[in-house]
């Protein structure tokens, strides 16, 4: 049962489409596990559509529809020529995903949020990981965005995250397993926000490895272990 949810600010910005990608990825991960928040997003999106409808319309150029129509005709003839019988662009990623997951590990395939599935291609070991100590490793997710670090981290059963201090805020979403800190125990789907100045030592539960998605505010202060670890990689184009 998901206990920690994104607040109205995150949900509204997500529904409006203005939430920066790193945080939006965290919200999307939470939504994967939380139908209650999905229902909220649906309402908030409907509200967005109502505001959209109240706008003062702005005339488009006269030939706009004709250009659009020609464009569509062109696309359809070239699609027909490639003997692709009208494949929806929306269904394409799903098809590739399905093929990929069957070749890898089909069972874990539905467990993770769509974007994380795409990233890991059904196998988290396909990512490039950096180890810190024996039980903790992380893999940086390169987003176009510069202001935040986005990372997957993995704690072995019973292991802990090195003690660290938050310079900026940090969002964590539990994807697999569970972990605890001084305040509570967190389960799959929980969306946890830590603000600047808090210090904690998360520990994974004894019986299961824990996989989390995190989004960290940058610039991270110098005494933060994350900064020291990530700094050498900031400017390196990452391939995965």
């Amino acid at each position, binding site marked *: 049962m998901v206990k920690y949810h994104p607040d*109205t*600010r995150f949900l509204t910005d997500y529904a409006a489409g203005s939430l920066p*990608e790193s945080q939006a990825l965290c919200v*999307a991960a939470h939504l994967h596990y939380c*139908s209650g928040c999905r229902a909220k997003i649906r309402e908030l999106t409907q509200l967005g559509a109502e505001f959209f409808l109240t*706008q003062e319309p702005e005339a488009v150029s006269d030939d706009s529809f004709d250009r659009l129509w020609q464009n569509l005709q062109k696309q359809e003839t070239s699609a027909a020529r490639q003997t692709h019988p009208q494949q929806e662009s929306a269904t394409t*990623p799903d098809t590739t995903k399905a093929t990929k997951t069957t070749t890898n590990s089909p069972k874990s395939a539905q467990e993770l949020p769509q974007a994380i599935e795409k990233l890991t291609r059904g196998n988290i070991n396909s990512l490039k990981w950096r180890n810190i100590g024996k039980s903790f490793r992380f893999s940086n*997710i390169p987003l176009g965005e510069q202001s935040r670090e986005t990372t997957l981290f993995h704690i072995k059963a019973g292991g802990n995250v090195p003690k660290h201090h938050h310079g900026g805020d940090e969002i964590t979403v539990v994807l697999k397993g569970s972990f605890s800190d001084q305040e509570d125990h967190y389960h799959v789907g929980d969306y946890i926000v830590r603000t600047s100045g808090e210090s904690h030592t998360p520990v994974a539960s004894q019986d299961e490895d824990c996989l989390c998605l995190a989004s960290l505010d940058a610039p991270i202060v110098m005494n933060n272990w994350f900064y020291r670890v990530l700094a050498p990689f900031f400017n390196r184009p990452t391939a995965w």
Partner: protein
Amino acid sequence: MSAASHQNFGQKSKRVVNEATVKWSNLLLKVAEHDRAAFEQLFVKFSPLIKAFANKQAGADKGVNMSEELVQETMVKVWQKAPSFNPEKASASTWIFTIARNTRIDLLRKNARHFVNKATSIPGNDQQDDGFDVHDIWIENEDEDIFNQLVKQRNSEALHEAMKALPEEQSFILKKVYLEDKSHSEIAKELQMPLGTVKSRVRLALNKLSLSVDR
């Protein structure tokens, strides 16, 4: 007597709204069957709204003019995705708004990436991206789970009336959130007010609209 006529009026206005909703939905269903005339009618209604939506977004006045591009790209997707439209699940306007919103995110990401790549000038880096499509993060497909929870969509007219009744400072901020593509933090910065004030105004507004608020 007066109560009865009140009720009649209520029913009548409800029917008018439903007619409009049904009209756009039916047009979309025809578009799914490649009906050009239906598509043109939707275009006449929605493209000026999409253009307005594009022009309001932050950065529109900074020489990044993507309004016609957003109209074209959104309407291409409306045509292509129309077969997946289900009037039981969403109204036509919410469905089109979602596509316009995602297309806007997509165009902004492409522009930003192009800009970043240019700035750092890593050769051959133009194609590099994080591998996510916008719909990996902003999921478009509605799932069954939610429809079992919610009996039906909120009455569009009732929501509209409630929106009109919002205090100016609250609707002002909601418009920034939804139409100007500004996050809570960006709004706080622009209006030089604490983030907490922006948050509480949005929350108050959503409360008045009987929409989602924090548990």
